């Protein structure tokens, strides 16, 4: 799953630390999400979407695995 978290954050000029504090997660979690190393829980995904005022699908892009 890809995501547009870094792009959305940069658009709004927010630092990782600020976003982490607003979402009540660690800064490392934000870094891992942006790098695509970690997929968030549905709860955190909703919190992120709500924070940026967009839909979940606008932040997280589901990619079906090709066989």
């Amino acid at each position: 799953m890809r995501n547009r978290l870094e792009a959305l954050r940069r658009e709004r000029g927010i630092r990782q630390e600020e976003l982490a504090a607003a979402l009540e997660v660690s800064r490392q979690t934000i870094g891992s999400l942006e790098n695509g190393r970690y997929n968030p829980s549905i709860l955190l995904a909703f919190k992120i979407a709500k924070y940026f005022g967009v839909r979940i699908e606008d932040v997280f892009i589901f990619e079906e695995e090709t066989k």
Partner: protein
Amino acid sequence: MKKGLYTTLAVGGLILAAAGLIALKMGAAPDGFLQVLCYVAIGCGCGAFGHGMGELLRYRALKNAPDVQKQLEIERTDERNVAVGNRAKSAAFDAMLYIYAALNLALAMMQADLAVVLLLVFAYLLVVGLSIYYRCKFEKIM
């Protein structure tokens, strides 16, 4: 409330360790079960004192730093940190099953006392049984 509990633990631990040490030095327990009890009292006392004192110092250090306290709470409950911890525990458990089995085999080949081998076998089976129990439990609630 918690401060009182940790103070009790630290003071109780200190008393227990001191009592064990004094009893041992004064020769109140020359040998046998009482001597073992003294060593157990010293061990448990030191553990309780260390844990209680550590928590008290932590409480004192964080008392006037609510921002640090909040950050620590965030780090503790952070979903990625929890997931990382659970994954590490899971990997360690998988490794433990092989280590236990190897240890059992080694002890049996060394012709160790049957009681020791059987105790290890029961401990191994208990751990496997607990893993099955929790699997069934989580199947129901998840």
